[in-house]
Structures are given as C-alpha cells and as structure tokens.
C-alpha cells in the first residue's frame, strides 16, 4: 500500500486566491483550520450532522468536514472570516450579538453561514423556513429560540447595503 502524494489545489477563499498543497482527500475543514489558519470554522461531530463546520462553496452551504480538498479545486469558498466587512459586522452577525443568538459560540459560525444561505434563498423567511434552513445546525446552549429571533431581526434591519 503506497501513500498518496500531496498535490497542489487552487481555489478562492474569502475573495483571495489561495494555493494549498496537501493530500487530495484532506478534509476542507482541516485545510481551512490548519493550512490556511482560518480557525473560525469549527469541528463538531465530523460526520455531517451538526453543522459547526458549515461554509459556503460557490455560494452553497456545505459541511466542510465532508468535502475533500480535491473537490474544491477552482471553487470559491466563503468562511465566517469572510462575512464581516473589516470591523463592520454583517447584519446577521449583529443580530446574533444583539439578540443573544450566541452563548458558548461553537455553533455560531456555522449557524451564521446557514442563516446567510437561508436569507439568500428567502429574504423574509417564515418561522418554518427558518427552522428548515437551520435544521442542520445543532446548538446545545440556546434552545434555538434566540437564534430564530436573531434571524428574524436580521431580516428587519434595513440600514446599510448588507
């Protein structure tokens, strides 16, 4: 049994072209956290159940623990680090802060990414759409209600371009 070789893969992360040399089945989650030092993306279950590692690939929500590096070649990845505009929080992040949508914070980056996909799909979601959109993101602290309230509040914020 011979080992695989490391290969170079190119893709865009948070607007910047990056090149990573690693094994092709390396998990995107590990590439982000270790190779690119973007530790905002968290590992929870490592089996696609909890959503803590959620990122957007080409604008679509994915579990980065289930995406091999070979499948992000040429793609555009957005992580939680690419959501705020410098120091200025995205309206979803601001709403999570203002409505206590985060407690321990481990689920929060994934929850924000899922909320971004939800709001791109349904700019003013119903509570059922919020529940469905966030159903793949587990939170053991909040009981979810504060998170749902934060998403509702984020939709109601109209100031600013975002």
């Amino acid at each position, binding site marked *: 049994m011979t080992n695989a070789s490391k290969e170079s893969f190119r893709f865009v992360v948070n607007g910047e072209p990056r090149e990573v040399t690693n094994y092709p089945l*390396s998990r995107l989650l590990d590439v982000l956290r270790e190779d690119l030092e973007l530790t905002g993306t968290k590992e929870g279950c490592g*089996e*696609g159940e909890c959503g803590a590692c*959620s990122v957007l690939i080409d604008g679509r929500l*994915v579990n980065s623990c*289930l995406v*091999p590096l070979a499948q992000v070649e040429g793609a555009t990845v957005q992580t939680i680090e690419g959501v705020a505009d410098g120091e200025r929080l995205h309206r979803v992040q601001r709403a999570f802060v203002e409505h206590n949508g985060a407690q321990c914070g481990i689920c929060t980056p994934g929850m924000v990414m899922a909320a971004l*996909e939800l709001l791109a799909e349904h700019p003013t979601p119903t509570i059922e759409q919020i529940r469905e959109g966030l159903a793949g993101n587990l939170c053991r602290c909040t009981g979810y209600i504060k998170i749902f309230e934060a998403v509702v509040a984020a939709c109601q914020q109209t100031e600013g371009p975002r």
Partner: protein
Amino acid sequence: MTGYSPDYHVETPANLAEALEKLAAEPGKWRPLAGGTDLMVLFDAGMLRDRHLLNIARLRELRGIEASAHEVRIGALATYTEIKRDELLAHELPMLGRAARESGAIAIQNRGTIGGNIVNASPAADTPPALLAYGAQVELVSLRGSRTVDYAEFHSGYKTMDLAPDELLLRVRIPRDPRLDGALHDYRKVGTRRAQAISKVALAAVGRVDSGRVTLCRLGMASVAPVPARMRNVEGEIVDNALSDEVIDRAVAAVDADISPIDDVRSTRGYRLQVSKNLVRSFLLRLREHGDDRR
C-alpha cells in the same frame, strides 16, 4: 478514529470517457466519489475501506435534469437541492421533491446526489421509495456500452446491486405516464423526529381511480427490507378492483408478503410491520376518497 488522508488516492477524470477507461482498466479498484455525503462520513470515521477514489463530482455528462415527451431524465449527479427545486418534477413527480427535502439538512441536500443515494444502497434511503412508485429505470454505462434496468430489479440484496465494477450509474429515467396527472401521490416518512432523522419506515405511493376502479397503483417502501421494497403483493390486491373495505383489508394483509423488517437501532420488526400496514391503509383510504374526483 478519523480518516488518514495520505492513505487515499484520488483521481479526477476530465470527462466521462476518461472515467470509464479508468474503471475498465482496473475493475473494482476505483470507487466513484460524488457528493461525499456517505463516503466522507465513512472516511471521517476511519472506516472507508476503498483506498482509490474516482472523483466524478464534476462530470458534465452525469449532471442535469431534462425531459423528453416520454420521460424525465435525472442525471446521477443531480443534487437533492436541484431535485426539490425542479419545477417539472414538482408538478409531475412530486414525491421526488418531498423525498429530497427529507434527505438530511440543507448542507447535505446541496452536496448529496440521487445517484449516490441509489448506489450507496441503504434500505433506509429517502428517494428510492419514490423511484419505485414512479416506475423508474436506471441507465448504466461502461466502455462496453449502456444498458437500462428497471430500478425495482436493481438492488439484489443488502448493499448488493446489478452494477458491474466497470459501470457508472449515468442517469435515472422516469416515464412521463399521463395517468400520474390527477393521481394521488402520497409520501410518508416516519422517524424519531420530523427533521433530520433516518426513517423507521417510509412509504411512497401513487394511485388513481377511474370509473370506480383502480387503474394505477404502485408503492415503494424504505427501512422494511434489505432493499428498497416494491409492494407488488399489495398492488396485486388493488389494481383493477374497486376499493371496498374487503379489498383494502386484503391489501393491508398482503404487506406481510412484501416486506421483511428487522429489529435494529432505530426501531423494531413489530413496530415497522404495524406502521407499514397503517401507512398502506391510510394511503388506500385516501385513494378511495380521492376517487374519480380530480382537479
């Protein structure tokens, strides 16, 4: 235990021909990898035994959902998200979108593919019952050519199927049966919770009554047998008959002959048998009420 990525070779063929050549040159060596929502879970758990993966995720030839006058063709790489958003499917084959919506959360639906759902061959998978109810076929392709198999005959036993080592699942083909228009389409998934649960039992059923008699009746079930189960004995009691209480009772009794549920981590044999009968009865009562009264 997590997967050790240096142990795994990944090749990314540029097109279908290249992929088929690879599979033909070294039969059984390369395991196709599409959305990764099953294989990467095994990898993460340190349980992925296939060390050579053929990354087919971007093969253009396996993508897309299209329709001719007679059939709908769903590329093996069509994701659950694409399936649940497709307007033609929502209109003509609505249980497919329902099943896709039941398959994991949004992040899974964005990556997981219908082809993967089929060849992963879990008896609990959500889309196969709908494929059975709609009389789907699967088209398999290799360097030797392509062949089309009734999906109801595709799975031969637990995790075994009519797929040679050099073949890829190219697409699912579903006839555009005009009788489906105005038929009753009934998809029911029973799990521990409403969301994010693997099914204890699931039923997809389509039926139609014309002039008081059943002219179309097909049912598929999940989690009740080693393979997704087509309910031929139940169908045999129903088709061409009027839905009297006696006929419905006989059809419900025939459930015993169509399924062989087991005790496992999610449920028990006894529960699954009872709930299967309840779902079949509920479908038939709804079908009787639906009757000739369409639109």
